[in-house]
C-alpha cells in the first residue's frame, strides 16, 4: 500500500517545513498547497497555524480555504488541525472577538490567566491526560509529554469527549478527535518521539495507511 497523501495547507500562517518533514517521517506523503485546488483528492487535510487568531483566520480566508475546508469536513474527509489550526476549528476566540472561526466544534477559545507560578504563554513540555478514545492517542504509553507554545486554549467544556487534557492552571484540550476532525494544541512536529507516535497514529488509525 502506498503512503497516504495529505494536503498540508501552506497559507502563510507560519513555517510549515518542520510539519512537512514530520508528517513524512510518520509515513505520509505531503502535498504543500496554498490553494484549495484538489483538496478533495487528499487522504487528509492538515491545517497548521501560528500567531494571532485574527491574522491566521484572515490568511485562511484570503487563500479561499474556508468554504472548501468546511465542505471537506462535512464530507467526512479527515482533518488534522495543529496549534492555531486546532483553535480555528472552534466558533471563535477571545483573542479576536467577532472573527468567525470554522465553527466545526462549538465553543470559544480562551486566554490563560497569568499567575506568579504560571507564566503565559505556556511554553514547554506538559503531560497528556487521555480521555475517551482518540485514534491519535490509541495505545500511546503514558506518561507522555508534548511541546506547547500558546497563550490561548480550547476549554474542557467544549462538546468533545475523546482526546487528551492537559492542565495549565485549568484543564484544556491538548488533543481531540470528533468524528473526522482531529486536532492538537501542542506541536507534534516538535514533540520528539511522542509527536511522531501521534502522527503515526493519525496515518494508521485515521487515514488507514
Amino acid at each position: 500500500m502506498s503512503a497516504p497523501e495529505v494536503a498540508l495547507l501552506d497559507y502563510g500562517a507560519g513555517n510549515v517545513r518542520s510539519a512537512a518533514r514530520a508528517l513524512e517521517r510518520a509515513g505520509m506523503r505531503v502535498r504543500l498547497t496554498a490553494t484549495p485546488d484538489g483538496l478533495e483528492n487528499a487522504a487528509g487535510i492538515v491545517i497548521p497555524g501560528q500567531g494571532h487568531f485574527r491574522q491566521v483566520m484572515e490568511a485562511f480566508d484570503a487563500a479561499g480555504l474556508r468554504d472548501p475546508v468546511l465542505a471537506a469536513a462535512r464530507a467526512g474527509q479527515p482533518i488534522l488541525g495543529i496549534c492555531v489550526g486546532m483553535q480555528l476549528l472552534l466558533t471563535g476566540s477571545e483573542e479576536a472577538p467577532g472573527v468567525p472561526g470554522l465553527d466545526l466544534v462549538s465553543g470559544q477559545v480562551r486566554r490563560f490567566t497569568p499567575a506568579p507560578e504560571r507564566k503565559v504563554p505556556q511554553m514547554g513540555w506538559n503531560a497528556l491526560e487521555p480521555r475517551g478514545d482518540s485514534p491519535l492517542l490509541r495505545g500511546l504509553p503514558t506518561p507522555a509529554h508534548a511541546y506547547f507554545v500558546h497563550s490561548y486554549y480550547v476549554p474542557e467544556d467544549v462538546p468533545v469527549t475523546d482526546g487528551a487534557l492537559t492542565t495549565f492552571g485549568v484543564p484544556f484540550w491538548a488533543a481531540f478527535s470528533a468524528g473526522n476532525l482531529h486536532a492538537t494544541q501542542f506541536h507534534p512536529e516538535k514533540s520528539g518521539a511522542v509527536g511522531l507516535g501521534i502522527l503515526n497514529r493519525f496515518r494508521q488509525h485515521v487515514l488507514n495507511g
Partner: protein
Amino acid sequence: MLTRRIIPCLDVQNGRVVKNVRFFEDHRDAGDPLTLARAYEVQQADELVFYDITATHEGRSLMLDVAVQVAEQVMMPLTIGGGINALTDFRQLLHAGADKISVNSGALTRPELIREASDHYGAQCVMLSIDAKRRPGGEGWTVHRAGGRVDTGLDLIEWATRGQALGAGEICLNVMDADGTRAGFDLHATRAVSRAVDIPVIASGGAGKLQDFRDVLTTGEADAALAASVFHFGELTVPQVKAYLAAEGLPVRPEWREQ
C-alpha cells in the same frame, strides 16, 4: 504540570559546531550540527540552542542551512542566537525553521528590536539573552555586551524588566562570574531575575554537577537550565540530569518510548 526544561547549547562557526565535543568523538563527524542535534534528540533534551559565533557573511548563510537541516530533521524546539541585530535576522532564521531567536547585544544597541520582533512574530519566539556580571565590590549585577567584553553599566534587573516590557517572551541569563567555572549557576542573580519578571527564565553558565541543576531550578527559581560543556564532554547526560531531578521531586519530562 509544565515541566522544567534541560537545554544543551552548541556553538557554531561557519556552519560547524566548534569546541571539541568529546562525547561525540565516536561519531563520524563531531562537528556536524545535524549529527549532534540528532544525538541530543535521542537523549530527549527538551530544546536545543545553536549559538552562531560566525563573523562573516558566508558564515551567516551557512547558519541558515544549519537551521533548515536541523529544523527539518529533528523533532524538537530549536533556538538560534548570535549576531542578531535586525528584524531581517529574525525573519531569515524563523523562515529557515528556528522556533525562537535569541537576541543579546543587538537589543542593547537598539532595544526597540525586541518590540518589533515581538509584534511581528510573537513574544514566544523572542528570547532575550543577557550576559551579567556582579558589580565589583557592589550590590547587584551589570549587563555586559559584545560577548561580555564591555560593561554597559546597565543594571541587570532593570534590563530584564525592560526586556519583558518590550515584549521578550523569555530571558536567558548567563552570569559570567559563574560561566565556565563548573562551580554551579549563580543562584542569587537567577532568583533576582526570576522574581523581577513574569516570563520564563533560563539559567545559563556554571553547570558542573547534578546538584547544580537542582539548585538553580529550586533556590534559583529558574524555569529551565542551559548547559554546554558538561553535556558535550559526556560528564553528564540529559537523561541522567532528568532522572536526578525527578528523584529530587522536580517536574521533568521523563524518557519516553513507544513500547
